């Protein structure tokens, strides 16, 4: 290994930093490795941190290094990510990865049809937000390598996201990562594919070919690492061109599970202001919904950026639902509950859905090919919609699992 410099650093320091650390490695001409650790949690975890650093020094065969660490209470996965990054900034050719143990709770899988009402964005280089994110109950958590990460810290976020996919329990939320715009995003894939990512969000998609490039690389990495689980894609449409090509994009891969729209970039592309009413983006949103439904996948709406305005969020979700969207992006954990409540079916929808589902189950039991309610015939898509309504009602606690009994009894 040839060092690119004799000194490199990684991570964050300062009085406002918490749950993170700063690492500096300086290579000397001779002498033993030396660790200077200043830690907010010295008494509780100072010894175990020093042990970890020694272990990592051995792993990376680091010699004659003076290591300075300012620890503001970083979790082990974060310390590992910061230290590995400092090593890799010193030795850009270093291919070795120091992987934290995979949390046994993180092996769960996803499905293409999973509910994706809410997806919570977490900035890729801010590990302090991770451990509690899943507690707020979002359907999906997005570790973001793209817009929320400074250009100079893309390498840092890759390691933080990789380690977090392995160590952090997201409590059943679908594990999503937003990669960078292609071609840079292709380089992100090796940090996520081997670590049970469920859905890859691909930003600023404007062609089917871009999806195919991601698919090819993902399949290659899956083969290399012996990954059997399906990994799905959610292309994000964020431009006029992308909008016009939405259907092509939607059918570009069998692994596409949804199309999402990103309105900040889209309105910039049109050269208009983004408004709360959203008149300027109505075409794009309708186009996207139609493209997604035509391709048999989900349509997912943009984020609502005013985290203080919960009523505005609620209205925006209700409007999105009306247009055919099935989910909304969240940038703050407090938005999750509001989104779920707003997407939840209304009382009269539930009453109707219960009747349809019961009629369907009754018909099935009797082996009838046709479902009817009173004198009306019920089509298969209507049954499917009713089943979905019941599922949403259950998830929102509007009915309980015994609803059939209550209905019949």
């Amino acid at each position, binding site marked *: 290994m040839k060092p690119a410099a004799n000194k490199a650093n990684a991570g964050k320091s300062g009085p406002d930093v*918490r*749950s993170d650390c700063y690492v500096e490695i300086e290579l000397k001409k001779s002498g033993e490795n030396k660790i200077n650790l200043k830690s*907010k*949690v*010295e*008494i*509780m*975890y*100072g*010894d*175990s941190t020093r042990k970890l650093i020694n272990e990592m020094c051995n792993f990376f065969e680091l010699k004659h290094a003076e290591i300075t660490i300012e620890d*503001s*209470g*970083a*979790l*082990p996965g974060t310390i590992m990510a910061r230290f590995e990054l400092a090593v890799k900034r010193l030795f850009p050719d270093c291919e070795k990865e120091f992987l934290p143990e995979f*949390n046994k709770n993180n092996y769960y899988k996803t499905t293409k049809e999973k509910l994706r009402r809410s997806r919570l964005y977490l900035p890729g280089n801010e590990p*302090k937000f991770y*451990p*509690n994110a899943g*507690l*707020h109950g979002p359907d999906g958590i997005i570790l973001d390598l793209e817009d929320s990460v400074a250009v100079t810290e893309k390498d840092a976020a890759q390691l933080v996201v990789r380690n977090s996919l392995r160590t952090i*329990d997201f409590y059943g939320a679908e594990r999503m990562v937003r990669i960078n715009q292609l071609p840079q995003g292709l380089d992100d894939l090796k940090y996520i594919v081997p670590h049970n990512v469920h859905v890859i969000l691909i930003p600023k998609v404007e062609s089917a070919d871009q999806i195919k490039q991601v698919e090819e690389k993902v399949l290659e990495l899956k083969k290399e690492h012996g990954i059997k689980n399906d990994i799905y894609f959610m292309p994000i449409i964020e431009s006029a061109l992308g909008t016009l090509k939405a259907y092509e994009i939607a059918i570009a891969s069998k692994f596409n599970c949804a199309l999402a729209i990103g309105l900040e970039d889209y309105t910039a592309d049109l050269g208009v202001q983004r408004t709360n009413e959203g008149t300027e983006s109505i075409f794009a949103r309708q186009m996207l919904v139609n493209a997604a439904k035509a391709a048999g996948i989900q349509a997912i709406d943009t984020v609502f950026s005013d985290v203080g305005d919960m009523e505005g969020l609620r209205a925006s979700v209700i409007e999105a639902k009306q247009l055919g969207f099935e989910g909304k992006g969240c940038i*703050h*954990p*407090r938005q999750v509950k509001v989104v779920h409540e707003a997407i939840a079916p209304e009382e009269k929808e539930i009453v109707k859905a219960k009747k349809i589902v019961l009629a369907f189950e009754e018909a099935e039991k009797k082996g009838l090919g046709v479902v009817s309610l009173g004198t009306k015939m019920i089509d298969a898509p209507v049954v499917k919609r009713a089943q979905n309504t019941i599922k949403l009602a259950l998830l929102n*606690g509007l009915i309980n699992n015994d609803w059939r009994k209550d209905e019949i009894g």
Partner: protein
Amino acid sequence: MKLVKNAIGRLVPSEVNGEKQTPYQGIGKHRPTGNKAKPQISTCADYPDDGNKVVKNLKEALKKAGLKDGMTISTHHHLRDGDVLTNQLFDTIKSMGIKNIRWFPSASFPCHKHLIKYLEDGTIHHIEGSMNGPLGRFTTEGNMNGVGVLRSHGGRYQSVQDGEVHIDIAVIAAPTADPFGNSTGDRGPAACGLLGFALADSEYADKVIVATDNLVPFPCYPWQIQGNNVDYVVEVETLGDPSKIVSGTTQVTKSPDRLLIAEYVADFFEKAGILKDGFSFQAGAGGTNLAFALILKEKMIAQNIKARFIRGGSTKYLVEMLEEGLTDYILDGQTFDLEGVRSMRENPGHVNTSPFTSYNYHGKGNFASIIDAVVLGATEVDINFNANVVTHSDGYLLHGIGGWQNCLFSKCTILAIPSFRDRIPVIVDEVTTVTGPGELIDVIITERGIAINPNRKDLLKAVKGTDLPIKTIKEIYEEVNQICGGAPAKPKVNKDKVVAVIKWVDGTILDSVFEIKK
């Protein structure tokens, strides 16, 4: 120093600062007999007929009060971090060449780091009260001459009335007073609300000095401290910085995780059946507790439920509930913001209480056990539900007990706490310092779930079948260790040197704080 094991297995000294001590015996086990302490008999013949007890300055008052080496001087924390008077008091004592004072504050604040030099030069021998912030650090590192004694607000009253602590001179900061000594905290430039913490001192101290920056002609009415107990009145330029005495506005948390905890607490109130017409509760002024009160308020309005009383520390949020008719009374122990002070002054439903009525364990009952539920915090809780509020996991004293111990006697004691802070686990195997025995702590509510003390079968039954995230404390403990990378190492302490003791509400010793090896 000879250490003995007390009823919960903690090592405590049998003698502190030369006085014999009783180790903690268990809840309600220690039953002292005999009579309360007796204040001196005074005669009007020794006091001016015109009722004018004003003397020139603090030094004069201290001189007249007979200040001597080794005396016990008490002060009170109702001026909180804005307190200027206490620092001036010790500047004066120092200038008089007096040594070895036992300082007996009802609590200390970071502003009192000014007094560290007097602890170093021997003006102050030791502190009995609380050792917050810099004073905590100073004490824990073994720098104080004597052993610190930490008491709850109720325990402070108990220690005075039981004669464990004899106050030679009490110095009471009074935001408004008259020359006779009648005093109140609800008005004046340094208005702080109420003076309940100074009540015991005014009754039992040999000499009582009232210092005020708002002297009004007799009578100062309504009064909270009776002039009949006061020896001297001193006019000072300022008692303190009003902006640090009460905050303009108390802040509701914005942290999504704290808000989640607050929601769980309110849900628990509802689903465990605590929330019902005529109920009562107490919640502090921390950001999570304020958020809880607001969520609870929405539930009360939605379900048309009214409380009989709410125990303060009051804030504008409680005041709003009182004014909107959601509670008949606020029984207040201290006011945290200006709205609380205003309400106390104007609203007869906003009642001024003291540690005697609310918290004193050696009385014929107190208010704390009448309350349906309290919501408190803690720095650590262990898998046996023992909790700590005075030290951190690094072994350093950082907070006082306040009314926390006294509140544990409510019908349902809830600790609303994060399961870890940064990388510091809050749910641990064994707390650094026991401040409250687990048998009095019923429910732990964290962002990772709700743990109910297995002794509370009634509560476990009440929440069965609800959607509350009920877990065992052990489950939360293990989850936190998994996140933080293993259980935290314990601080290395010098087991031969006790730097402070934690008193239980009955005056027995619950636990010790040991010197940290630097």
